[in-house]
């Protein structure tokens, strides 16, 4: 009751004070002075201010005297895909060198198509093992055909072709010999052709992964690399820059190292017993890490800053990553044989080296991402940079996944399962192939002056990326379950049955990836041959130039 009275009193009081304030205001309003009215009107005008739209030019006609406004495009239709920037014209590359590079990239494209067609077929065989009964097409023979043709055919030829562009450019001199480039091209192509036929006919080196070509076949590849490395070193020796740009460190190192590992692994008079296994671990992993990875990183150090039009974030980080990669990567080969009969200390060294790989991987990734910093807006306008970025992201995740797989406990779960297959596709495809595509889409238009349609480049990108995800994620999940199943000791065949849906997903993802390669080949073809109608003059410069030509022609006729 008391509360009610207090509340009532408070409300009454409030009403009274409001009345008082209102009366005071009414009185003030009636007695406003002239100054006060002027001040208020001025404030009112300020609050209501709007631009007239004529502030810069005044009442005069608009005139862009310095030609600041250019490339005005008016969207008169709805766009299904966003328009990206076109390739910028660059100083012409020597036509002979252009031709050589295009031959390298064209051969690489052929081997990509061939190798992944085989890969796609192998993926189908997991789902339909009786799809054919032809000895030359049986799984065990085709599997190395797939891996070797994408390794030595696609990625290696593409890297070398791109290096023929990068090495002379960062040395600021012409390439020493173009003829040597063709020798390499022919030798490597011959190596992959003969190697493929041998493997399908049942002639192979005895089973180590990526070492299936017999040594005379691999020797062709090795001689090809020797010819080109001497060509590159001579070019670098006569460079006109004082420093050796870091790209050339990576590229030359990769070529030297692949020769060392091939020589050791293929020398035909040793490796009895477990010697073979120790060398296999070393060879196989240096092959992917020192040849493909080091080489592609070298190319990235050239193309990324150049595409972003700014210097690399830190040159020193690039150097740190270089030495750290050599120091740690060389050690990790035997992590493919954890718990096997090879010496226990060697397995431990490999695990420690795999953990050490975090240093070059983090250094490299940080360097690339910080180079992107401040230029992220370029990503949305570019059809090449998305390939670079995906390559960099997989460089980070795929490499760290490799470290994770090397530990003893993870070996229990994942070793011998398809997890390894997923990992090798995340890296060789996610890192290497995406980077190479980005670089190819960057330089071919510069060499030929022709661009592929942006819509098919976009379709290539998305099909490859989504396909890779469909391929790897179910495979990683399924093989984790399979490893756990093996640990629990159920009959082996149940783990085969478990994998069936994941193998189907792999085939679906693989098909998307394969379609994306068809698009890539189509794009490459268009970048070589696309005919565009001569442009009808539109800009003032063009119209005046055309008029000048017309007048000149007319005056000649007279």
């Amino acid at each position: 009751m008391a509360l009610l009275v207090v509340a009532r009193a408070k409300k009454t009081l409030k009403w009274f004070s409001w009345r008082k304030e209102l009366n005071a205001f009414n009185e003030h309003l009636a007695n406003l002075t002239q100054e006060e009215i002027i001040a208020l009107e001025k404030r009112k005008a300020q609050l209501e201010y709007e631009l007239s739209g004529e502030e810069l030019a005044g009442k005069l006609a608009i005139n862009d005297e310095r030609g600041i406004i250019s490339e005005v495009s008016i969207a008169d239709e709805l766009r299904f895909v966003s328009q990206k920037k076109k390739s910028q014209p660059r100083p012409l590359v020597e036509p002979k060198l252009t031709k050589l590079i295009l031959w390298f990239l064209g051969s690489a494209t052929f081997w990509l198509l061939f190798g992944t067609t085989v890969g796609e077929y192998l993926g189908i065989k997991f789902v339909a093992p009786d799809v054919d009964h032809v000895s030359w097409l049986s799984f065990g023979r085709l599997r190395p055909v797939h891996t070797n043709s994408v390794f030595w055919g696609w990625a290696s030829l593409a890297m070398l072709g791109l290096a023929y562009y990068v090495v002379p450019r960062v040395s600021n001199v012409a390439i020493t010999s173009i003829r040597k480039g063709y020798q390499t091209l022919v030798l490597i192509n011959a190596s992959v052709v003969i190697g493929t036929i041998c493997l399908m006919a049942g002639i192979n080196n005895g089973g180590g992964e990526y070492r299936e070509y017999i040594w005379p076949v691999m020797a062709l590849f090795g001689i090809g690399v020797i010819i080109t490395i001497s060509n590159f070193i001579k070019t670098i020796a006569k460079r006109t820059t004082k420093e050796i740009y870091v790209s050339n460190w990576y590229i030359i190192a990769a070529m030297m190292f692949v020769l060392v590992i091939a020589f050791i692994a293929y020398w035909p008079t040793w490796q009895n017993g477990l010697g073979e296994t120790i060398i296999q671990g070393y060879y196989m992993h240096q092959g992917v890490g020192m040849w493909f990875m080091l080489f592609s990183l070298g190319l990235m150090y050239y193309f990324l800053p150049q595409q972003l039009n700014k210097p690399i974030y830190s040159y020193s980080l690039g150097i740190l990553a270089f030495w750290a990669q050599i120091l740690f990567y060389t050690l990790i080969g035997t992590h493919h044989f954890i718990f096997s009969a090879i010496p226990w200390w060697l397995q431990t060294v490999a695990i420690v080296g795999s953990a050490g790989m975090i240093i070059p991987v983090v250094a490299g990734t940080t360097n690339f991402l910080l180079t992107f910093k401040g230029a992220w807006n370029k990503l949305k306008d570019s059809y090449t940079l998305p390939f670079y970025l995906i390559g960099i992201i997989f460089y980070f995740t795929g490499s760290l996944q490799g470290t994770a797989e090397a530990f003893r406990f993870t070996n229990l779960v994942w070793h011998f399962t398809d997890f390894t297959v997923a990992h090798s596709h995340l890296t060789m495809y996610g890192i290497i192939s995406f980077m190479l595509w980005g670089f190819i889409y960057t330089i071919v238009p510069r060499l030929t002056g022709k661009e592929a349609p942006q819509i098919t480049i976009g379709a290539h990108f998305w099909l490859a990326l989504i396909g890779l995800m469909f391929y790897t994620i179910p495979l990683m999940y399924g093989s984790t379950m399979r490893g756990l199943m093996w640990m629990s000791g159920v009959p082996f065949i149940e783990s085969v049955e478990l994998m069936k849906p994941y193998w189907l997903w792999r085939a679906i993802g693989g098909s998307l990836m394969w379609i994306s390669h068809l698009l890539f080949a189509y794009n490459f073809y268009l970048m070589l041959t696309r005919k565009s109608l001569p442009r009808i003059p539109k800009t003032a410069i063009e119209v005046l130039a055309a008029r000048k030509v017309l007048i000149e022609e007319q005056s000649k006729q007279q």
Partner: protein
Amino acid sequence: MELFNNHKKLFWAALGLFVFLTLFVALIPATKNQEQNAPLPGYKPLSESAIRGKNSFIANGCVACHTQQVRNVDMDKIWGDRPGIAADYAGIERTDFWRNTATLMGTERTGPDLTNVGKRQPSLAWNLLHLYQPRVVVPTSIMPAYPWLFHEKTEVDSTDVEINVPQEFRKGQTGKIVASQEALDLVAYLQSLKQVELPTGQPADDFLYKKETNPSTPQNNTGGILPDLPNGELLYNNNCASCHQANGGGLKGAFPSLKGSPIVLGDDIELFVNIIMLGYDARPEYAVMNAVGMNNNLSPEEVTAIMNHERTSWGNDAKKVSVEEVKKVMDFIKLTAEK
């Protein structure tokens, strides 16, 4: 820095570091390993036929899916009696001047490990049938079929090895299907794959990461109640099902059905145990059965579990046997085997 601006110094430095590390993680360990290990005393070199078979194994890329290494971890126990050691591979030398050493250790187990397959599955008939078409004997297998290792013939010679392929897998072949020499060689190689026993007195390495046994399982020492037996179905699937099939139905013309089998259901425990332990070759219409029990070192408890699984599954309904009965027969087998 001078090092970084002089291409000779820079590239030699990088190459030097790489080769130096290579020496210590590859060249020296590999050379040492190949010098310091010799085959075990019990090691038998491959026969001529098995060497040809191994070449066929290499040519067809079987190593893509089959490993030959028993790791020293508990989960690999099913693939061998002991972890593999360097001496197991020491007898393998370069295949020839053109081809490298084939230890065939492999890196992927899409299919089973083969280190000990000669002991686990030595049956010629099973292996040939499995090569011709794996899905005849293992319905859910995804292994490739190798029909080109077989010929079709109208008449079978005394030297021919015929395989009995069920109608639905013959693909229109109406004649007799006969193994080629290559198929026989390949099987000879598979049959030769057995872990060599360590010299007496030398202990095998331990299997690491052992599964933890559950200590809360009550001890079964009270008389009258059957002791806890191992899982009979699992043992049957691991040791018997590849021929007799998971449903016990066998395969017509190759492996007899166990459904309603008088041996499985009968009271002659001694005969039943004998067949499991020592194999069987009394019925010409079926393939020879190998000494599955002896080869796989089955314990009396395990044999009992398998027998009871067979006696009470797929419509079979016979009285379970006890470990004591089985053990008595097995002790006798051991005794005669030692003589």
